[in-house]
């Protein structure tokens, strides 16, 4: 199948007269990829997923799955399965019957149902709990049953609606690896909805960032994190410093405090811009240090230090409206600074990104 797994063409979803949940969205999801829709709650990502599943229909636009128009097809006629945020396991059925539900609905023979359910339960390591009711299982196990119940049908596309949201941190991190592993093993297209940028970054082949019903940027995790094109994407993913600046001469930006810094010539713009700088791309030096050639160097004063165990976060004052946040690893070979210290902040010109508002 070389056709894209899912295509959304000019999809708009309005609820009532004035709520636009999804606004004229175009998106192509490739066959076999792990695609994440990332955004804050209420951005339209879940509505988008529900339109692919068939729980909602677009107000206008086209949803295609492997080239086939979905139109007003009900969910049971679509070659996709969903892992629900709340798992939505049938409480009156045991694990086996939950997992067998889809196959039985499609009138698969008993022997094959048995074989496939056993195999998928094996895969999620729940063979021994086949007779348990969902309420007798832990959250992590329920999550795996929900996954098994969808995967056993071998859907063309698997839709996952914040499936890890209800799990605690350690379990969630384990599941992130398992999910990614599973996806590459079964080769099914995953569309994964999340508001958690870490989940999206660690698992996805590509990420689409949404805000207010609009798809702002689509790209690989690296592109999204390192080359955000808009202030929203830069700010939503990870920590970032956003500095207003004016570009006069090519390659030179003047900060609000009058300091001129070099920017990458990739950005042939001029006028009012916003510089986006990741805290971990900034380095602190003692005030008398010799900073290597080619880096921007600005004088600053440490105004706050926060200890995170593996890293320190420093707020340093440049004489701008907002302090600059700097992330330094907690390593014995790096200098440590105290509040009030005069320091130098440096970064490579290529580390700064220009973003639009």
């Amino acid at each position: 199948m070389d056709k894209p797994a899912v295509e959304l063409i000019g999809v708009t979803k309005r609820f009532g007269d004035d709520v636009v949940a999804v606004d004229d969205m175009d998106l192509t999801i490739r066959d076999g990829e792990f695609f994440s829709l990332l955004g804050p709650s209420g951005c339209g990502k879940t509505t988008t997923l529900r339109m692919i599943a068939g729980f909602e229909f677009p107000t206008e636009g086209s949803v295609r799955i492997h080239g086939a128009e979905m139109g007003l097809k009900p969910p049971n006629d679509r070659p996709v399965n969903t892992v629900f945020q709340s798992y939505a396991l049938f409480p009156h059925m045991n694990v086996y019957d939950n997992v067998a539900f889809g196959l039985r609905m499609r009138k698969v023979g008993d022997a094959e149902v048995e074989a496939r359910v056993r195999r998928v339960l094996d895969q999620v390591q729940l063979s021994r709990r086949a007779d348990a009711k969902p309420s007798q299982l832990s959250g992590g196990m329920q999550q795996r049953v929900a996954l098994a119940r969808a995967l056993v049908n071998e859907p063309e596309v698997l839709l996952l609606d914040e499936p890890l949201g209800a799990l605690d941190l350690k379990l969630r991190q384990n599941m992130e690896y398992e999910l990614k592993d599973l996806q590459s093993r079964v080769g099914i297209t995953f569309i994964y909805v999340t508001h958690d940028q870490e989940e999206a970054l660690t698992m996805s082949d590509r990420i689409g960032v949404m805000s207010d019903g609009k798809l702002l940027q689509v790209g690989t995790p690296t592109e999204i994190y390192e080359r955000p094109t808009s202030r929203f994407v830069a700010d939503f993913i990870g920590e970032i410093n956003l500095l207003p600046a004016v570009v006069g001469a090519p390659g030179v930006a003047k900060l609000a405090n009058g300091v001129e810094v070099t920017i990458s010539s990739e950005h042939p713009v001029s006028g009012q811009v916003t510089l986006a700088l990741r805290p971990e791309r900034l380095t602190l030096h003692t005030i008398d240090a010799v900073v290597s050639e080619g880096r921007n160097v600005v004088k600053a004063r440490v105004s706050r230090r926060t200890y995170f165990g593996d890293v320190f976060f420093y707020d340093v004052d440049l004489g701008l409206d907002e302090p600059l946040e700097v992330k330094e690893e907690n390593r014995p070979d790096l200098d440590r600074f105290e509040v009030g210290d005069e320091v130098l902040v440096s970064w490579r010109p290529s580390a700064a990104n220009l973003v639009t508002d």
Partner: protein
Amino acid sequence: MLDVELEEGPTPVTPELERAAERAESRRGLFISLPGYVYLVIFFAIPLVLVLVYSFASRSSTGLTVLEGWNVESYKRLFTPLVAQIFGRSFLLALITTVICLLFSYPFAYYIATRKPSTRNVLLVLVMIPFWSNFLVRTYAWAFLLGSNGPISQISQSLGGEPIRILFTNTAVLIGMVYGFMPFMVLPLYAAIERLDWSLVEAARDLYANGATAFRKVTLPLSMPGVVAGSILVFIPSLGAYVTPAILGGARTTLLGDYIVSQFLSARNWPFGSALSFAVMFVMLVATIFYFRAGARTL
């Protein structure tokens, strides 16, 4: 807590103090439930014991109940063909009433539960409006509607047909019973359907079930608590119904309700009336337990 506070103010807590606080808590629980307990004991438990005592009493030659010569004659009489027939008839009527109520109420309750909240409240009020007028008055209204001079009969006649008299038939009793007990079926069903997790229905649809199958496999089994509660609330009063059969049935066929009443008022056989009452309660209790068990199994 407050009850065990010492004059000196708070002190570090010891196991004794903690136990004292727990005892105070449970005393408070008893205190607030006291009015309910007192009422139930005086007006329910004591009369019930009296009925039980009377059911073993004997009658004097003039028919008065004598609280001596204890015997089980009244209970033996329960196993006569006449009693069995009356019991069977009442049971059947209650069963049919329950089934019809269920068939009418489920779709309606489903409809209400799936409306938006403001519409729901209006519909629920409509269901409860009949309670605002007296049950006896409403039953007489049905007697008028179903009688040979009532609107139904008049419409039939104006269309050139025969006069229709439904009043004083089993159909009239059934109509009246279904009418009277329907809200008791609708409300628990509504409550059960309303709190259903609709993502389960979506999950069933997502797993290739069409609308009807999703209903059969998910919605219906998960709303069984409402079906059980509604059925019990309709079946039990139907079994002992007295007013509706008396007014709309014209007491042509004897049902349990009027049979018991007649034992107390006309036959003046209090021991037998008491034994009958106890037998009905026993049957209801057993039926309820079985029904609950069956309902619980589907979950």
